[in-house]
């Protein structure tokens, strides 16, 4: 690292000023607002009153749907991140092989990543419709099923579908992260291992996984944050219905704030979500910083 300007000069800070300003106003300020509101009394119309301590938090925890929403969020994040990481890893391993049409396959795999989530969710909404949905139609026409199947018979099933769509759109991100890790592995390592008589499983656990781990951990932590924050899939497919049974934290606090007008508890939930993310971010930062040489 070269010295550039000497320490103590203002120049570097000036170079960074626009960026700092932008982040401060539009990222830090909202954080401050949410924190402040969560400790204040707010009317349904949004008029901010005085300091009420932790009352909003107590209200939030005592909301009837709080437990359901928390469990849903947990399963949502766990299943989407877990399964998409596993499948993304497998797909990346396959796409790292040399074969004709590999470029094409990679281009196709990128589609879900490039598509807006609200569009993806709308299409899947159509696909799994009972009366005229494309999935029933295709399966019937292929002669795989005899009768149309009701794909959304209960809210449990609907929630599973939401998770499935979440997995579908998350896989490309994981696959490409892992792929970038795989491409940096030196071919000769595998050749040496083959000479030593290592099989596929040996190579997987002694070479591939350890060397891909950094890429995998970045994608996993980023995914936890993206998936936790994901709003359009649940909102488009069920809007949390029936009675918040399919809501996750984010869709719930949206409904709470903008529909039910319970702004106090909504802000408190926002802070809780924020703190959960901070925890993830902290873990991520420590792991990245450890590798950085600054």
């Amino acid at each position, binding site marked *: 690292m070269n010295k550039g300007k000497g*320490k103590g000069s203002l120049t570097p800070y000036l170079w960074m000023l626009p960026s700092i300003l932008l982040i401060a106003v539009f*990222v830090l300020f909202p954080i401050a607002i949410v924190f402040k509101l969560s400790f204040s009394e707010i009317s349904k119309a949004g008029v901010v009153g005085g300091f009420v301590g932790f009352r909003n938090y107590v209200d939030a925890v005592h909301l009837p749907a709080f437990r359901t929403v928390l469990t849903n969020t947990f399963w949502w994040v766990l299943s989407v991140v877990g399964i998409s990481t596993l499948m993304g890893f497998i797909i990346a391993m396959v796409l790292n092989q040399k074969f004709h049409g590999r470029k094409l396959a990679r281009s196709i795999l990128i589609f*879900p990543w490039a598509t807006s989530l609200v569009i993806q969710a709308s299409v899947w909404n159509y696909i799994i419709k009972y009366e005229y949905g494309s999935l029933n139609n295709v399966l019937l026409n292929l002669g795989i099923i005899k009768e149309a199947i009701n794909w959304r018979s209960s809210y449990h099933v609907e929630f599973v579908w939401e998770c499935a769509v979440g997995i579908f759109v998350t896989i490309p991100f994981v696959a*490409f992260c892992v792929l970038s890790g795989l491409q940096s592995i030196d071919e000769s390592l595998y050749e040496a291992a083959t000479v030593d008589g290592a099989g596929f499983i040996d190579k997987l656990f002694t070479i591939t996984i350890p060397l891909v781990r*950094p*890429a995998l951990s970045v994608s996993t932590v980023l995914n936890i944050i993206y998936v936790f924050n994901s709003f359009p899939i649940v909102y488009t497919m069920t809007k949390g219905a029936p009675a918040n049974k399919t809501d996750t934290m984010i869709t719930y606090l949206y409904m709470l704030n903008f529909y039910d007008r319970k702004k106090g508890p909504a802000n408190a939930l926002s802070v809780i979500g924020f703190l959960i993310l901070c925890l993830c971010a902290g873990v991520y930062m420590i792991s990245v910083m450890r590798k950085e040489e600054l």
Partner: protein
Amino acid sequence: MKTLAGRNRMALILLLLAGLLSIMLMLLPLYRFSASVYTKKSGNTFAGDEKYLEVKAEVESKADQFRAQGLLVDISETVTERTNSKGEVTSMVAFSVVQTFTKSILSFLYAGLPSSRALWGMLVCMLLSLILSGAGLIGRMDLIPKYLDRRSKGLRSLSVFFSLLGTTLVPVFILLNNRCFWRRLSLYEQDLLTEGREEFYALLDSFLFQGKMGEEAGTVLKNLRMEHSPLVWVLLLLFLLALSAAVQIRYGSMKSKMLRIFLFAFVIAVCVITLYPYYVMLITAFRSNAETLDMYFLHLLPTSWKWNNIIDIVNRGVPRYLLNSLAIAGGATLLAMLCGIPAAFAMARMNFKGKKFFLGFVIMSQMFSPVVLLIGIAQLMNTLRLNDSILGLVFVNAAFNQAFAIWLLRGTFSAISLEMEQAAKIDGCSTFGSLTRILLPMAAPGIVTTLIFVFINAWNEYTISTVLISTSSHKPITVGITQFSSFNMIEWQYLFAASLLATIPVVILFMAIEKHLTSGLTSGGVKG
């Protein structure tokens, strides 16, 4: 240890055996049909009374008529007893003459059904595979495949190709039959589909009843039932066996090549599943409203392409939404780059106090997608009088992509050697000059990647826009399309036509940076 010639001979025998076994399987009566050819209901009749015997005799004579025609029929009778409102017991007897019969797979050959063609394909493929393998082996029984001449290599490759083709045709055959007898027939039966009904009934009549039903075919076929034995799937196993034998003959070893075939199958499956929603989006966008709600749709493509859907959505404000999205995404990208490039430059090329802190700050802000701060942002925009404006979205999108932009750009800048800039500095170039004239042109690929990435993120953003924007003429496309799906009516064709227009540009952009994505994604974050 076996010799190569021995192994080749074994494989050839295996191939032959698989062929013979599949022919034998095809001769078995695996398909079972039942159809009631004649029904007679007799009301107010009790089992065993005079009327019952009378009707029974009539039905029996009818059955004898069928038997005289050479059909295999059984008589089944059902008695329904009911107590009516006056407390009297009434009874009804229904007789039906049910014809059950079985068909072997091979009998489908001349049925003229869609599956017949697949069956012909299977047989021809199997035969060709056998002949070609044999021809490729003649005189070269003990030659290692690597050193074969082009002719026998080609012959053996063709053999593999044909057995692969034959193998894929097996499920095609089975599913085509299911489609025919489960789907098509039931649609005709319920009068949900009429096109091509006469021809189809005539085909089935000649296949199942040797054309004896004639006029009655319609009524008889209405209650035709088809079942197939699970044994038909054994055929697939036999074809796979033949395939592996052909692979063994061509490559001398089976393991790696079979693995390769499975790899291809896996990749194709992944691609098909990935593309499926896009296919649905594409065809639905060009179907009429009635057709999008039609569960009896039998076609792969719309029956007539409704280009009018595009005109309709144009009239309903979609171009406006697209322009808004362009303004938001373009503005946000510009702002993010204008702020991000100097910051990334400072972090890559300068040393200063608090750099580590700033870096941490940037990573932290990357963590908070705007969604969890939704309420705070809405409040802030109210204060700044930026709610319901495109400018507000430009700022928010730029701010929340800032972290990612700096991260990617810093990685790109750090990877470029310092020498050119140092040389420029000696020649009297300012820091700003060395950035714009030297570093930026050299970092172009990384900058383009970052640019496109930020653009796509901003283009696809939905949640903040849906909260901040209420005026229709300010909506970006992601929010604008939701007007086509109100609570009780969804105009799928418009929804997907607009979605298509919103998706195509970003997918193309993303494909353009795909190559840089794999390296850029982690170069900033992981390797540092």
